[in-house]
């Protein structure tokens, strides 16, 4: 029996309310299994019921992940807005200046899910940095789940997904409708690559990136793993490159070699010179 019981649900209700003041209504019980399955996969426990057991034991590393999974919205385009402001105002101009001779930019969206984050970046670049038309742009998206990576590759989205934070002007400019779905323009899709990647396992060899986005994925890891992942991220960032984390996340106390830079209403982390 891998699904959560009514008792588990009650525990989760109290647990989530205590941590986020969000009331998990009775009829949301069906959500528990759907929302917590990815957490089960990422943290490596056997089942949702085991996850709740871990919570009861006071396993702190799992707590944040559970709260986030139960209370967070589905993937939106240009999620949280502020990171994209940071890209627009600070990061892209900075990297463009740094790479002026090389005329290349490499961006990695780690934990890319169904691709909205990476495609949002592609749209931002196309719409607001046309000078990069002649540059070599490597846009990489990776995730743990095969089905999610395949969906990201297809660039195909339902109308429910397309409604989520995508400016209408971008909808008409970058998407064509195919049946009940919307497909992103080839011109953007061809700049992206989506692959399977498990951040918690040893990383395969990889060229350095200018920008790494690791938003809301570190919360799934315990501290030693967080440190390993952040150290690996630093190692794969060009000096002066940028790491972007989720709103409540930080490198402080976990890894050296980064300078916190406020930008666009959020904080981004610049890799210091070696």
């Amino acid at each position, binding site marked *: 029996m891998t699904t959560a019981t009514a008792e588990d649900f009650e525990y989760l209700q109290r647990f989530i309310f205590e941590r986020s003041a969000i009331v998990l*209504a009775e009829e*949301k019980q069906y959500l528990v299994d759907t929302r917590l399955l990815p957490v089960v996969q990422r943290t490596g426990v056997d089942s949702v019921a085991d996850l709740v057991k871990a919570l009861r034991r006071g396993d702190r590393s799992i707590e944040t992940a559970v709260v986030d999974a139960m209370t967070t919205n*589905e993937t939106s385009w240009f999620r949280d807005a502020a990171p994209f402001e940071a890209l627009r105002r600070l990061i892209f101009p900075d990297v463009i200046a740094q790479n002026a001779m090389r005329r290349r930019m490499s961006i990695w969206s780690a934990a890319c899910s169904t691709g909205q984050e990476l495609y949002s970046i592609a749209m931002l670049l196309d719409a607001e940095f046309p000078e990069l038309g002649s540059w070599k742009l490597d846009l990489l998206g990776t995730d743990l789940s095969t089905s999610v990576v395949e969906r990201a590759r297809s660039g195909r989205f339902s109308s*429910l997904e397309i*409604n*989520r*934070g995508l400016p*209408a002007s971008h909808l*008409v400019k970058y998407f064509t409708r195919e049946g009940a779905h919307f497909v992103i323009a080839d011109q953007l899709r061809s700049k992206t690559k989506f692959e399977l990647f498990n951040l918690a396992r040893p990383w395969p060899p990889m060229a350095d990136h200018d920008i790494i986005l690791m938003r809301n994925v570190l919360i799934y890891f315990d501290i030693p793993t967080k440190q390993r992942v952040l150290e690996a991220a630093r190692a794969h960032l060009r000096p002066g490159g940028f790491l972007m984390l989720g709103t409540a996340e930080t490198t402080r106390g976990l890894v050296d070699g980064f300078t916190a830079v406020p930008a666009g209403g959020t904080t981004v982390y610049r890799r210091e010179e070696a």
Partner: protein
Amino acid sequence: MRALVVDDSRAMRSLLRQILVKLGVTDVIEAEDGVVAVKLVEGGPTPDLALVDWHMPVMNGLDLVVELRKRKEWRHMAIMMVTTESEHENMVRALLAGANEYLIKPFTADAVVEKLSLLGLHLEPAQVGETDGGAS
């Protein structure tokens, strides 16, 4: 903040009103077609936001957008289409006519919040509890 909801379905107007009220927008006026909508806007404080369906009797949503954009004093009104109409050419027509945003039916409450954010209207759900954001 005042919002105008234009849709020939009372059920849909009710649904949108509920979402707006939950976001703290309590001044919501309703119209069942474009002609009634124009009269309403003429007759009171200009709405800050208009949610407009496409297919309606008497005057449809596209023609309403054209009408609303004719008046200089109403230019600050944010207009969002809320419709099943998703043919590319038609979406472009709506945006060119002056609609600022476009929401495809069916939609969730979360989607409405995010679209309103894009319009510069940053509203928080007034009540805790909707972790999934489905329109209720």
